[in-house]
């Protein structure tokens, strides 16, 4: 017996992988579509976080299910990526938000005073 499955996986694993992959990709697409559609910067910055949280977690779950079933052991490398994105995305967003507020104030825009 091999130490990995070479060929089709059990049906439940394939359905679960397909579900999570499509769900995560749909979340990422909705978030990016909001990035194009929303009117101002301060509303636009909310949209891509949908892809950075739910999108990344769903596709990570799909990867974990697929490779765990394929290799007969728990495969958690992909969770490392989701954890890393969960740690770094808020940092980038806060930096960007502060930069946008700073630049808006310098231009005399209608934002709350610092």
């Amino acid at each position: 017996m091999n130490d990995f499955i070479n060929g089709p996986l059990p049906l439940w694993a394939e359905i679960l992988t397909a579900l999570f992959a499509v769900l995560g990709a749909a979340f990422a697409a909705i978030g990016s579509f909001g990035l194009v559609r929303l009117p101002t910067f301060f509303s636009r910055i909310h949209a891509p976080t949908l892809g950075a949280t739910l999108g990344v977690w769903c596709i990570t779950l799909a990867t974990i299910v697929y490779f765990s079933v394929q290799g007969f052991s728990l495969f958690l490398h992909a969770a490392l990526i989701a954890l890393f994105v969960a740690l770094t995305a808020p940092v980038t967003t806060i930096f960007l938000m502060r930069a946008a507020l700073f630049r808006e104030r310098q231009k005399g825009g209608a934002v709350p005073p610092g």
Partner: protein
Amino acid sequence: MTPILFWALKLALLLLAVAMLCALARLLIGPTAQDRVMGLDCLYINGMLMMLVLGIVYASNVYFEAAMLIALFGFVGSTAIAKFLLRGEVIE
């Protein structure tokens, strides 16, 4: 690979490609500099997700390292540009 998973992965890749095009549009037309940085941020996250899906398509572990590196360098790049917009310098 059964047809269910095959077509689901094709659909996921298509949706991620549309997402990357949306982010690219914001990167190109964004009125201000911070809009462009946000578009780049979204673009690299979508590219990383596409790498993960491609890893399932080819049933290969090699794509994880690529996804990890994209996440790492994307974070460093976005933070550096945001810091530059905030202070006019990257390292003070």
